[in-house]
């Protein structure tokens, strides 16, 4: 069932992938895979420009976060640099009724869901743990324990089926994000088992950014990841994760299959983590500069920019305006992050249980009393 073949371009991984926009901005009309599925997009100029704006914006906001962390305003940051197309392409492929289960790196998907980009900053600043309502935003809380969210996504998707919300074009679909390293976790493989058995309306979106912190892909598998799906009874496909068009096309098709009742798909978005794993990481210890260089040539933004230019879909003014607007958003974000209030100490006792607990109440009271004992004591 696995498919990943494509018109082999330059630097295409063995097994190929679906690519609709080459690194130098050449548009591939459509790609037909071994199983006969044809992938293509027909965007209006407006939509093309919109995708470009998304890519530039999420990269600019990410850069701002990296800077904030360096300045000590964030405890840590997980940068998406290099993975903008994988996240914008899949994020824009989601329909409003679809539900997303992110890891800790899906800031670009969050943005494409129309969510205020400041939402995850509480977590990275350490003022909270990312406390938002998954159902309000159709975007689950960030999950830090590798792979656990794939089972949550699978259960949620089972619920979609139980609610009778599949089997039609306006059905609901679920997307689970995870990385190449996560594919080794038992829980992720269990989510494949369950999705196959229950024919869950889910898309497993694996951003293969080539590394799990310092470990290259060979530490997780010796065959392409998209091939994992076949053994669980659903299709796997690899897409050029630095190609926003192909990522959009492949994800949209998989989501629609899911919502129509055709079950799960595994998508391997072949991309690269251009930055450090997180701000705590030092990638120079485990990878060479030339490798990073070779991926610079496949940059997701420059290829779309080249295409828009060649096709005269956009001009210099537009590109400048996009940069300026992103810059404004970044500065606005920075201001609001700096303005984030620290939590009240006593807040550490909040929300342990929906129904509370006399033990927690007693500890909270004792804590408050103890805190009060310092009032004016210079502490």
């Amino acid at each position, binding site marked *: 069932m696995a498919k990943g073949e494509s018109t082999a371009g330059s630097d295409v991984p063995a097994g190929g992938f679906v690519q609709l926009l080459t690194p130098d901005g050449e548009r591939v009309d459509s790609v037909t895979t071994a199983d006969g599925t044809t992938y293509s997009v027909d965007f209006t100029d407006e939509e093309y420009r919109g995708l470009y704006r998304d890519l530039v914006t999420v990269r600019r906001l990410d850069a701002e976060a990296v800077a904030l962390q360096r300045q000590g305003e964030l405890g840590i940051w997980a940068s998406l640099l290099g993975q903008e197309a994988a996240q914008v392409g899949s994020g824009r492929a989601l329909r409003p009724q679809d539900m997303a289960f992110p890891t800790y790196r899906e800031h670009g998907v969050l943005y494409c869901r129309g969510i205020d980009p400041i939402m995850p900053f509480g977590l990275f600043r350490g003022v909270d743990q*990312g406390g938002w309502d998954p159902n*309000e935003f159709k975007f689950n*809380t960030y999950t830090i324990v590798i792979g656990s969210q794939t089972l*949550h996504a699978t*259960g949620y998707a089972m619920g979609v089926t*139980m609610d009778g919300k599949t089997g039609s074009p306006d059905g609901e679909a679920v997307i689970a994000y995870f990385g190449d390293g996560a594919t080794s976790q038992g829980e992720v493989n269990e989510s494949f088992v369950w999705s196959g058995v229950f024919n869950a309306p889910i898309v497993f979106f694996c951003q293969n950014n080539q590394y799990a912190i310092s470990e290259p892909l060979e530490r997780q598998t010796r065959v392409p990841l998209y091939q994992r799906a076949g053994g669980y009874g659903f299709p796997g496909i690899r897409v050029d994760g630095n190609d926003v068009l192909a990522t959009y096309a492949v994800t949209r098709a998989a989501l629609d299959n899911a919502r129509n009742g055709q079950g799960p798909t595994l998508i391997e978005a072949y991309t690269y983590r251009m930055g450090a794993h997180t701000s705590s990481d030092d990638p120079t210890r485990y990878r060479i500069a030339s490798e990073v260089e070779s991926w610079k040539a496949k940059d997701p933004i420059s290829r779309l920019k080249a295409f828009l230019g060649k096709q005269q879909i956009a001009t210099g003014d537009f590109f400048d305006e996009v940069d300026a607007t992103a810059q404004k958003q970044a500065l606005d974000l920075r201001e609001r992050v700096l303005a984030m209030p620290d939590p009240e100490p006593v807040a550490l006792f909040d929300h*342990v249980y929906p129904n509370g607990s006399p033990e927690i109440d007693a500890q909270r009271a004792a804590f408050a009393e103890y805190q009060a004992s310092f009032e004016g004591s210079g502490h």
Partner: protein
Amino acid sequence: MTETITLGKALNHGLRRALENDSKVVIMGEDVGKLGGVFRITDGLQKDFGEDRVIDTPLAEAGIIGTAVGLAIRGYRPVCEIQFDGFVFPAYNQIVAQVAKMHYRSKGKVRLPIVIRIPYGGGIGAVEHHSESPEAYFAHTPGLKVVTCANPADAYSMIQQAILSDDPVVFFEPKRRYWEKGEVDLGGDLTKAFPLHAARVARAGTDATLLAYGPMVRVALDAAAAAAEDGRNLEVIDLRTLSPVDYPVIFESVKRTGRAVVVHEAPGNIGLGAELAARITEECFYSLEAPVLRVTGYDTPYPAARLEEEYLPDLDRVLDAVDRAFGW
């Protein structure tokens, strides 16, 4: 209509009522469907409520709990069966890192009304992994509530209360008591039932307090009856809720009696008995005639079936501890 039924049957009735009362309640686990579970606790439920409400799952405990989390986010109220105490550990990561933490993590935005049913404890002559008492692993975990029942009436009401609660509840079922009978008011109004997170004085007494829960309540009551013959009037408290523990009831009792003995099957080292002893000593320091003593499983892995009688607390060991408390 009050009926005399087994603890297992009482759970079955309770689950049936929960499925009837709320279409969002789903039961999931290994062999819970056609088979009705290896202990038949879900007997007949799939036949009557369908495969979408009573779900035979793949053989993967992490999957059971992990998908239950997703179902709960979707608005369902999953009741998960773990087949035996010793098989909950593959799901431990989902339970302590996700089920227990998501409400806190999300600042109260995500509620996970999940009940995790675990038949637990020994005394059934089983092979390894089928007789354990892992309650401390869960009670030590903030964000989880942990309860256990000791008789059919409590089994019937507590399982329903646990399912109605928005808190994640680990529900320990004393498997060796599944076949013990008792009166249950099946028509009973749940709102009038004894609260889920309250301890109950199972036997009033004056000379010492026995603290027990689940399968050991019967042992404690038998010990109290035997002690009565020797003229010792023991109070027996059925904890019922292991996290949070209902301390006021316990403190009131021990302050009266001046002596306390905790009984549980789990290994003593860092077991629930340790916390009870520590808390009681803090609160009742000047009332205690003797240190709080513990009668527990030994700090060994659960032994082979032919050794479990020696391993498990019994009437004699409880009375021996009571003697020591009086002799202190």
